[in-house]
């Protein structure tokens, strides 16, 4: 009985928290206005707008706008990648998941981390050596640019929009909770600030917003974990023993609890997390901000370190929250019985418990800053897909003046910002947690296969990549709509047509199979042209000769 209740609870919770609760779902109660948090947030906004002003004066060329001039160091880029990737929701969502079910939180952290070594070993240096500003540059090195860029831009925009909506809705709800601001105001503030950063400061401003946010978040999380451990005399044994004694589930929080139950879903989720990360356009774009492949590699090394460290902290924070919040009347919802604001608020309440009002304000401001950093990176990536891939390459066939292209990307940024605000408001009452899951599945089934095979398989043809990639996109979206998350939970049908929550296993298979079949059946001429072109590409991808920003001839 207890076990089935638990499973039911988990199944109710899983879609919500899962994709790191990249959105805060459910109803939230507006808090009273929190002035410390607002002051700290205003300081952050002033500082970042100052940086944007500074960056705007240094953003003249296309390379400045898309790639911060290619002058970011590996260490800085590592921090910026961490800042881009550690969303507010992965901070609040994973610590909330640990708070609710203990060990299971760790499973998600690990899933979100293991994509990074794969990106480093298989993609990063080749991508850096072949591309210029977007991952589509690398894919279209030898494939036909018009068709392949249309597909890549499509993959980018779908991923960016889904991710962006989830972030906007999460932002609105979170800010309502933390600052006591009206939902609509919160969404508009986030949208306007992100438009300002990206339009004026381009990649340079975005990078520094992400770096500052990463440093603040890592500092805040370290402080919280340290305070928790200090109260436990730095003994993990004591932390876990106390948590087990206090938690409803008792000893069960120390072992896997059923979040990953059937093997097909487990493998499918694993694939989406691992290869989805390797296909996120706003992450791939970051590799062009460094001067060469050497720095690109270093940036992943640093990013993996920061992200891994951060996830270990969230685990301690989640357990710390169990020890310090459960049974503490100050944080218990008098009506519901759980903690106020739901499990995703565990880290926020813990901030107050260990550091008082001041630190609570600091963590709230950091959470807001975190959202800004993530949405800025997303918007810039979407804008570059529109201006660089669609406008300059597909519509103008590469014959476009640099100033004009930058102008288009600025207009695209503003349009995306307005779209994000609009969609954020439209989706206010919707459960948007599935969107991040879908974004990862699409990234893993469209962007990743075409990027990976364009670098590794010489017989890949444009037709194969185009049809296979489109198949991956259609399969991922269809399976998601017909699956339990949308078909049952949102549309209210009694039974799902597609039985699994995570489509990646099927959509990735469809993409790879489609690419293979339509490439090998392409005309002989086309295949042999591709094989010839592959040699040049291969040498460039391995040695960096002729790569963007390289100093040799």
């Amino acid at each position, binding site marked *: 009985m207890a076990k089935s209740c638990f499973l039911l609870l988990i199944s109710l919770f899983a879609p919500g928290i899962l994709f790191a609760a990249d959105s805060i779902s459910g109803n939230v109660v507006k808090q009273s206005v929190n002035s410390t948090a607002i002051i700290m947030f205003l300081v952050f906004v002033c500082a970042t707008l100052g940086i944007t002003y500074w960056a705007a004066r240094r953003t003249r060329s296309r390379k400045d706008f898309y790639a911060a001039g290619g002058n970011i160091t590996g260490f800085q880029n590592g921090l910026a990648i961490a800042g881009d990737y550690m969303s507010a929701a992965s901070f609040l969502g994973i610590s909330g998941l640990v708070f609710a079910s203990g*060990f299971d939180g*760790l*499973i998600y*952290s*690990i*899933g979100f*981390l*293991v994509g*990074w*070594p*794969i990106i*480093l*070993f*298989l993609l990063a*240096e080749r991508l850096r050596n072949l591309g210029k500003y977007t991952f589509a540059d690398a894919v279209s090195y030898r494939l036909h640019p018009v068709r392949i860029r249309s597909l890549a831009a499509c993959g980018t925009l779908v991923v960016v929009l889904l991710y962006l909506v989830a972030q906007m809705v999460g932002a609105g709800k979170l800010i309502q909770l933390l600052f006591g601001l009206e939902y609509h105001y919160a969404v508009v503030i986030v949208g306007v600030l992100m438009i300002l950063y990206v339009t004026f400061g381009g990649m340079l401003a975005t990078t520094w917003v992400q770096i500052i946010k990463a440093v603040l978040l890592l500092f805040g999380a370290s402080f919280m974990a340290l305070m928790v451990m200090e109260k436990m005399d730095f003994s*993990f*044994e004591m932390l*876990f*023993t106390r948590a*087990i004694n206090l938690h409803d589930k008792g*000893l069960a929080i*120390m*072992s*896997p609890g*059923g979040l*990953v*139950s*059937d*093997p097909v879903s*487990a*493998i499918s989720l*694993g694939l989406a997390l*691992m290869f989805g990360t390797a296909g996120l356009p706003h992450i791939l774009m970051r590799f062009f901000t460094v001067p060469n*492949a*050497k720095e690109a*590699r*270093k940036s*992943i*090394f640093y990013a*993996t*370190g920061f992200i*891994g460290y951060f*996830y*270990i902290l969230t685990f301690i924070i989640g357990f710390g929250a169990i020890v310090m919040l459960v049974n503490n009347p100050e944080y218990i919802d008098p009506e519901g019985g759980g903690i106020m604001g739901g499990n995703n608020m565990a880290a926020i309440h813990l901030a107050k418990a260990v550091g008082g009002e001041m630190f609570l304000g600091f963590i709230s401001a950091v959470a807001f800053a975190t959202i800004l950093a993530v949405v800025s990176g997303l918007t810039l990536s979407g804008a570059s897909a529109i201006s660089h891939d669609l406008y300059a390459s597909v519509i103008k066939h590469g014959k476009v003046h640099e100033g004009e292209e930058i102008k288009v990307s600025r207009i695209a940024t503003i349009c995306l910002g307005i779209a994000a605000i609009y969609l954020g408001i439209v989706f206010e009452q919707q459960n948007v947690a599935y969107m991040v899951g879908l974004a990862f599945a699409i990234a893993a089934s469209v962007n990743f296969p075409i990027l990976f095979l364009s670098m590794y398989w010489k017989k890949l043809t444009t037709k194969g990549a185009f049809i296979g990639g489109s198949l991956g996109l259609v399969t991922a979206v269809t399976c998601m709509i017909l699956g339990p998350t949308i078909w049952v939970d949102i549309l209210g049908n009694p039974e799902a047509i597609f039985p699994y929550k995570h489509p990646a296993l099927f959509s990735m298979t469809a993409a790879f199979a489609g690419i293979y079949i339509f490439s090998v059946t392409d005309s002989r001429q086309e295949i042999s042209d591709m094989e010839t072109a592959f*040699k*040049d590409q*291969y*040498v*460039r991808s*391995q*040695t*960096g*000769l*002729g790569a963007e920003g390289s100093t*040799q*001839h």
Partner: protein
Amino acid sequence: MQQFYKKIYDDPKFHELEGKRGKFSWCLALAVLVIYYAFILIIAFRPEIFAIPLSDNSVITWGIPVGVFVIIISFLLTGIYVWRANNEFDQIGQDLIEHHVKKSGTE
């Protein structure tokens, strides 16, 4: 540029580089995949393994150090790759470029 690509492609040293790096990066990628999927499949099929305590008088289960180990090993493997690629592989690549592009003197 094309002529240089061709020259480098025909150089056996290039294929030595490509072979070495390919083997190294695939081995590491495979290591990460095996470790991660072993972890996930234990959770899916034999979760009780991760519920075993470290010792009789400990509440800490094997699942926790193993999970933390997966995070740390991922980081260490990236470090190993970066170290070897940034020193050994880049040097070979640089030598190839020096030899075929800079020595030939053509722009």
